[in-house]
Each structure stands twice: as C-alpha cells, then as structure tokens.
C-alpha cells in the first residue's frame, strides 16, 4: 500500500521546500533557519529509511554543531551600530513563521512515528547501531583512523587560518 510511505514523501517535500527557501532568502539568518529545518527533515528521512543511529547523528552534529558554528560566525560579523535594529527585525513573526510551520510538520510526523505503530513504518530493514559499530570497528577500522586524522587536520587548519596576526600586511585592502 503506497500510503505506508507517506512519511518519506512528506519529509522529502519539507526538505525540498526548505532548501529552496534557504538558497533564496536574502538574510543569512533566515537561510540558516530554513537550513536547520531541511537538515532535520533529512534526519527524519534517515529514520524512516531504517538508519536510526545516523538520524540521531544528523540531528546532533549537522543540525546542532555545524549550524551553531554558522550562527557564531554570522553573529560575529554583524557587530555594527545597527545591530540592535537587526536584532529587533529578526524577532518579527515573518522571520520564523515559515520554518516553524515546516518544523511543525516534522514534529507531527515524529510524534506519530514515536507512537511505535509498526504499520506506519516502511518495510526497509532497520540497521541497528550495534551492526554499524561492529562494521565500524571490524573491517572499517581504517576509516576511523582516517576520520580522526581529518579532524585533526581541520582543527590545526582552522586554528592557523583563524588566528589574529599582530602585524598583518595591509596589502589586501585596496
């Protein structure tokens, strides 16, 4: 019965609409709100597809940590005399009503899914975190080493690029 897959298609529609909104908004914070919504809907799609561990990681790392980095940088670059004015504008309803509606759709889907009625879930086999861990620390143990090396390189790179040099040659401001 095709209605079983309703969750997938609704979440896919939410993801597409919110990505479309994210790349067309003029204000970076509005785009970020829509982008968090799209990442959360992709997380719901992962859950429906039978990957609960990846769904949790998507919500925590992507929609949580990475988006918080974006918010930090946007707020750092936005210190001006008009900062208070823009703060006031961001709190106006038309900023958050769109993402709230899309996130509300996702919340309803998640609430129905958490009722635990297996008839609503599609027939994709659920791959438990246990299986992922066995594969990760078995045949794929080199992947962990590569990932940790990549994170270390990213850390050192970000620190090196982002540090404030006392005597920066001002040749770029032309």
């Amino acid at each position, binding site marked *: *019965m095709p209605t079983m897959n309703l969750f997938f298609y609704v979440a896919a529609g939410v*993801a597409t609409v919110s990505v479309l909104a994210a790349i067309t908004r003029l204000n970076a914070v509005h785009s970020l709100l829509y982008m968090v919504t799209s990442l959360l809907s992709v997380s719901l799609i992962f859950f429906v597809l039978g990957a609960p561990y*990846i769904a949790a990681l998507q919500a925590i790392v992507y929609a949580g940590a990475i988006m918080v980095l974006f918010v930090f*940088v946007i707020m750092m*670059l936005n210190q001006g005399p008009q900062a208070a004015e823009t703060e006031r504008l961001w709190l106006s309803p038309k900023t958050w009503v769109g993402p709230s509606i899309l996130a509300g759709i996702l919340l309803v889907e998640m609430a129905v899914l958490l009722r635990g009625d297996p008839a609503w879930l*599609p027939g994709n086999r659920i791959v438990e975190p246990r299986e992922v861990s066995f594969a990760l620390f078995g045949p794929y143990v080199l992947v962990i080493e590569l990932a940790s090396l990549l*994170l270390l390189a*990213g850390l050192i790179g970000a620190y090196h690029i982002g540090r404030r040099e006392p005597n920066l040659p001002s040749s770029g401001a032309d």
Partner: protein
Amino acid sequence: MAIIPLEHGLLLAATLFGLGFAGLLVRRNIMYALMSVEIMLNAAGLAFIVAGSRWGQPDGQIMFLVILTMAAAEVAVGLALVLRFYRQYQTLDVDAADRLREQT
C-alpha cells in the same frame, strides 16, 4: 509493508544536490557558498543512506560517517577563511577577492 523505492530516494538526493549546486553558482555571499556546500554534502550522504537501506547493510551508514567528519572539518576551515576574508576586505562578497583574475 511497502519498501521505499530506491529511485525515489536517489531522486530526492539528486534534487537536493542540484538545489545546493544552484545556490553555490547563483549566490555571491561567501556564507551562502558554504551553506550550499553543506547542502550538497548532505545530499551525497543521503544517497549513501538510501543505497545502504536498499540492501539492508551498514556500509552506507559508515560512508555517511566519513562524509559527516569531512563536512565538520570543511566547515571549520571554511568559516575560519570567512573570518579572515572579512577582516581583509570588510565584505562577504566573493567578487571582492579577484586579484587572481586576469586583468582585461
């Protein structure tokens, strides 16, 4: 219980990837370029999860972990570059950094 068709999942991943790519090409703000790259990486991860779910194997999820790590490292370096860029040019327009362009 019906299985979600592989084609539909891949179609969604392609759509999200295309939208991210369009955003990368169209927007001139460097923050939007980074956000579009995030969208494209996430769409690639979605394709891995869809394929892994089709055969019920954990391999797709492990590839998603690799993409997640790469996205985190990429966004850290990218945002450090954004801060550097803003400090040097006082703008976020990528067209301001055109010193490597051939002068016509």
